[in-house]
């Protein structure tokens, strides 16, 4: 088990030294500034207007959701970009050879790297997520309903993408890996919105298509569950919001996502274990 921690440690240290993490943090900070400005303008706009606190709250909560969704997208992109070459790249360059000939089983190498990335993602999301909530609170006073659960679900969504980059990384080159995972992420994105739309349109075909996409890559459905957990009944009931709780992914869907993650990681380990390096 020691090997797992050594590999997790080196992966974590590598992540901290990568420019991409800091670039993503800068990007996050810029988006946060835009978000803060928007929130502030909204507050000014509402000032002195006679409006029901109910509508006002709904609008502000909706904006918070936009901020958090941005946070989520950025985290997923960071996850994919940092991890696509960790396995494929090290096999390609031969870096893995001096490591895989140490008294460390191959599954420990994969698991260690995986945990190192999970730690990096969890830290990154914690920072951007907390900052977004803080800005919303400071400007308007709105707060998400279940912030911790929301946070965990966002990290969960990223970790699903991570398992996919590991899975394809044991088979393909870095480039192919990136194309595949981003492609699947696109499918998930489509699936999520199709399901959302189907809530209004009632089209059976769209529902089926949405479900099929979410089965193929359940990442986005996890975000939609997060959105549900983050919003109060009140805010979530607003039917014109893109984050309205029209079709809430069930706990079964979350169970499916967890199983999907476990299978992807399991197959990655299995294949890495038996392939030539």
């Amino acid at each position, binding site marked *: 088990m*020691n090997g797992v921690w050594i590999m997790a440690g080196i992966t974590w240290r590598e992540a901290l030294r990568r420019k991409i993490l800091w670039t993503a943090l800068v990007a996050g900070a810029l988006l946060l500034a835009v978000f803060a400005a928007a929130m502030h303008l909204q507050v000014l706009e509402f000032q002195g207007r006679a409006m029901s606190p109910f509508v006002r709250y709904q609008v502000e909560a909706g904006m918070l959701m936009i901020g958090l969704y941005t946070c989520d997208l950025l985290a997923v992109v960071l996850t994919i970009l940092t991890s696509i070459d960790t396995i494929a790249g090290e096999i390609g*360059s031969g870096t893995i*050879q*001096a490591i895989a*000939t140490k*008294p460390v089983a191959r599954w420990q190498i994969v698991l260690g790297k995986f945990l190192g990335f999970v730690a990096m993602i969890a830290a990154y999301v914690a920072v951007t997520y907390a900052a977004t909530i803080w800005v919303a609170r400071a400007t308007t006073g709105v707060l998400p309903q279940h912030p911790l659960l929301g946070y965990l679900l966002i990290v969960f969504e990223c970790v699903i993408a991570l398992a996919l980059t590991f899975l394809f990384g044991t088979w393909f080159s870095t480039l192919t890996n990136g194309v595949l995972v981003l492609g699947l992420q696109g499918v998930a994105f489509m699936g999520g919105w199709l399901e959302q739309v189907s809530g209004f349109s009632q089209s059976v075909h769209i529902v089926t298509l949405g479900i099929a996409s979410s089965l193929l890559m359940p990442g986005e459905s996890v975000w939609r569950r997060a959105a549900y957990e983050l919003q109060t009944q009140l805010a979530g009931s607003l039917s014109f919001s893109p984050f309205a709780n029209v079709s809430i992914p069930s706990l079964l869907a979350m169970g499916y996502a967890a199983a999907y993650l476990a299978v992807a990681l399991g197959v990655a380990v299995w294949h890495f274990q038996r392939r*030539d390096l």
Partner: protein
Amino acid sequence: MTASADFAIETHNLRKAFGPQVAVRDLSFVVPRGEIFGFLGPNGAGKSTSIKMLLGLVRPTSGSATVLGAPLGDVEVRRRIGFLPEDFRFYEWLTATELVRFHGRLAGMSAGRLRTRVPEVIDMVGLASHRDRKLRGFSKGMLQRIGLAQAIVHEPELVFLDEPTSGLDPMGRRMVRDILRAERDRGATVFLNSHLLSEIEVTCDRVAFIKDGAIATVRELGAGWQDEVRVAVRADGVTDAAVSGLSRWTTWARLDGPELRFGASSEQVLPEVVRHLVGAGADIFQVTLDRMSLEDVFVQLVGEDRGL
């Protein structure tokens, strides 16, 4: 065959095919413990693939082998094995010290041992003044040195080196040679892959020639490894009687005008031969020793047309 405890490595009909491409055809050999064993062959002969099979990086298509008594793929035995890959890349964002420490930890070394051992090996490979520099700025030769440090930091019983001197200057080559000898003197077995004859010739105790994925021959090296030394003597006044009197020391002798040629089992006989000839009234102008070099053996086996 002796008990396998005497052998660091034993292979039986190892074979590796990458699809239709056969990298190693049929490999059977043993490596005695405590020797520097040279694995010599032209590019593409299957040397690297052989090492990778022995280290569990590549799965053989068929055949079997034991390394330090353990079957291929055994994880625990790797505690006692070191490896310098051929085209190695390491995390270049680490410093020399950090990289060697990382590999030492992976090899299962304790923190206390690492504290003293890491600076020691970095010093051994001649990088003491660069120990806190990032590997990003290292030259190929310096990386090769740090790779060597990484391979021996945990004092393994068996060290595999795949073309360890390819990026090194003459001083670096000498350092590698000295380190390999020191490793052997400490009791370690060294498995050295190389396509450089000269390197194998001066470093190894034994050499296996590999050609087209199979062992062509195994030779013991060291002083007088050749079957025969050939000598040419330019002299005046050599009589037939003097020539036939040489048979005490030589395997054959032939007088060819002013040139006397003979073969002997060792150059040790030369002073006696010269004394004998002078005693028989000959005037000697020149004695030339014609060694059969490893290169001759290599070329004979591999054929001149194949590039090294």
